[in-house]
């Protein structure tokens, strides 16, 4: 369906990434946000707090991030598209109820504007070191979707996309921004409402007496009944059967958890998002995401002047990881170069998928600023040898 015009601020704007994220959420139909202040993400909810009362949305500042995430899961069960926004320390606290959202199969969006860590780290300065936490931060086996915008415009676009994916797969979608993208101000074009495609909550048409909250057909994603519509369903964080009732058995665990994982892994082709530039005939491919992708672009330009054939794989969705694409490239290139503002996270994933077919050279950075492009150039030249 098309976006609700009430939430769409159509036009050409000059916005920072945080504001663009807020606008993307409102355009996507988000009407409930719970959050707790944390640098460098707070501007997202400040934007929303100002605009929500004009469009039927409710913002509440909760007592902490545990509560924010719990409220988001609760609100989503009313059919209301819901989101929370945070940075590293708050992201750690949200892991508990991100797990609940995956287990209950609750559509929601969690924004993490990454700063330097660990612990309180560098509150006002950039980091990309929560990428593995996004994948593995809550306990148990599960899959989520994580998106990494490189600009305010892409932040707007991907926030809409994040809501649509979360509705389609009934899974939390993590917007893994970084402080640079969050705080950089650029042109953002917001299309008219009828130019924005949004996914509605897929309410079941099965009558209450026949409805089973976790029965699935071919797509592995169950149909949704919202609280207050007479379905009188039960849902739990415990391992459950298709009635939503707890069942403590090996068989039920196998069915329940493998479906949660498989509904994402099995649809990876639909979910993976990347931008592939000049990889044909390349001897080295740079893999980067978020703000680092923009620094990498300059490095690639400089390396080409030195005569190296460099391709670029920009990750837009980092989870699920574009395994097929990296495997395919690994057969044709000498090495990957992976700059990221952490001491080596996604490079491990690249290395895994390359499977020894090509090298994977990390260009680590502990955080606080973007890379010096020369450091990436040096790695590219080394990789080409």
């Amino acid at each position, binding site marked *: *369906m*098309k976006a*609700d015009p*009430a939430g769409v601020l159509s036009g050409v704007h000059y916005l920072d990434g945080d504001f663009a994220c807020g606008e993307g959420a409102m355009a996507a*139909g988000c*009407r*409930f946000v*719970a959050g707790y202040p944390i640098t460098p993400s707070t501007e997202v909810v400040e934007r929303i707090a100002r605009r929500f*009362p*004009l*469009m*039927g*949305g*409710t913002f*509440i500042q*909760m*007592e*902490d991030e*545990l*509560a*924010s995430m*719990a*409220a*988001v*899961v*609760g*609100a*989503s*069960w*009313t*059919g*209301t*598209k*819901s989101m929370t926004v945070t940075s590293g320390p708050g992201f750690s606290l949200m892991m*508990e*109820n991100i*797990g*609940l959202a995956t287990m209950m199969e609750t559509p929601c969006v969690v924004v993490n504007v990454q700063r330097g860590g660990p612990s309180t780290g560098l509150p006002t300065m950039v980091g990309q070191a929560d990428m593995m936490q996004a994948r593995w931060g809550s306990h148990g086996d599960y899959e989520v979707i994580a998106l990494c915008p490189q600009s305010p415009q892409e932040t707007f676009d991907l926030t809409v996309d994040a809501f649509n994916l979360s509705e389609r797969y009934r899974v939390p979608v993590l917007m893994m921004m970084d402080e640079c993208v969050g705080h950089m101000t650029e042109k953002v074009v917001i299309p008219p409402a009828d130019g924005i495609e949004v996914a*509605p*909550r897929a309410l079941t048409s099965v009558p209450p007496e026949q409805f089973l909250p976790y029965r699935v057909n071919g797509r592995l994603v169950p149909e949704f009944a*919202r*609280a*207050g*519509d*007479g*379905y*009188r*369903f*039960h*849902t*739990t*964080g*415990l391992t459950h059967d298709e009635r939503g*009732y*707890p069942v403590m058995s090996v068989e039920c665990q196998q069915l329940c958890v493998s479906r949660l994982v498989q509904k994402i892994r099995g649809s990876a082709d639909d979910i993976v998002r990347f931008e592939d530039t000049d990889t044909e005939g390349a001897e080295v491919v740079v893999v980067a995401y978020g703000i680092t992708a923009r620094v990498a672009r300059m490095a690639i330009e400089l390396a080409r002047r030195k005569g190296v054939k460099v391709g670029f794989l920009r990750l837009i969705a980092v989870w699920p990881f574009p395994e097929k694409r990296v495997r395919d490239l690994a057969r044709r290139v000498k090495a990957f170069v992976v700059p990221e503002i952490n001491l080596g996270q996604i490079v491990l994933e690249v290395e895994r998928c390359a499977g020894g077919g090509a090298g994977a050279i990390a260009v680590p950075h502990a955080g606080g600023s973007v890379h010096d492009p020369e450091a990436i150039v040096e790695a590219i030249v080394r990789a080409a040898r």
Partner: protein
Amino acid sequence: MSTIAERVPVRPEEHPIAPYIRMDRMPHIWCPTCGIGTVVKCYAKALEQAAVDLDKAVIVSGIGCTGRVAGYMKLDGFHTTHGRAIPFATGLKLGRPELLVTVFSGDGDLVGIGGNHFIHAARRNMDLLVILVNNFIYAMTGGQNAPTTPLSARSSTMPFGNFERPFNLPHLAASCGATYVARWTCLHLRQLTKAFREAIGRKGFRFIEVITPCATLYARLNKLGTGLNLMQFYHDSAEIRHGADTREVDIAFQERIVCGKFLDEERPTFLEMMHEHYRKMLGDRYVPTPPSGGMIRG
């Protein structure tokens, strides 16, 4: 106590509260002479007496013995994470304001791990009916010390007796901003049902503490006999003092338990405050979330 002369067999679906219970989940997991079942029965009776639209009533629990209530009531029921029932319920209420949202959970869940959410929801006067079943111990995990364990009572993690001061829950709730505060034991069936019914008809943060025996752990660790003995003891130790000063209703080990309705006042709720304020500031530009929820249909 009277004795049951003859047991008349009743088919499960004939049980008076069967329409309110997921009978396909019976038998429940609670131990014999646990008090939670009677609290559930009183709650179901209150829903019936108050003629609540059950399609619009939702129930949220955290983790623990009482945490299982949300799974047994035949309502939209959410069995959430440990301590987070109140914020989860807050999301439900704000997402669809027409819902009657009940939080039904235990002492460890709501005021131990969830204590921060409890005080803030009370401060906001969030529209939630909070039923807290207090058995003085972490029962599901094997009898560990709770923030409600009376001084000197034994628990598995205070094997020589508890030396931490417990919470006085009615006082905590009242001082944080709850607008309805009551306490009963699980044998005060009529009073408890009436309190639930009354609280269903109120708005804002309503808090009802129910004292129940834990036969398997609390009674055994403290050599207090059977659950039934303890249930009877609590009932008999009750001192009914409506309107009591909540500063004076703390519970000491095996001593009197002050019961009654301590507070029943009207104060604007979170939603009322929000609507009134935005209307004042924004006038006609204010668009509240509709009572039926913030879901946008195509």
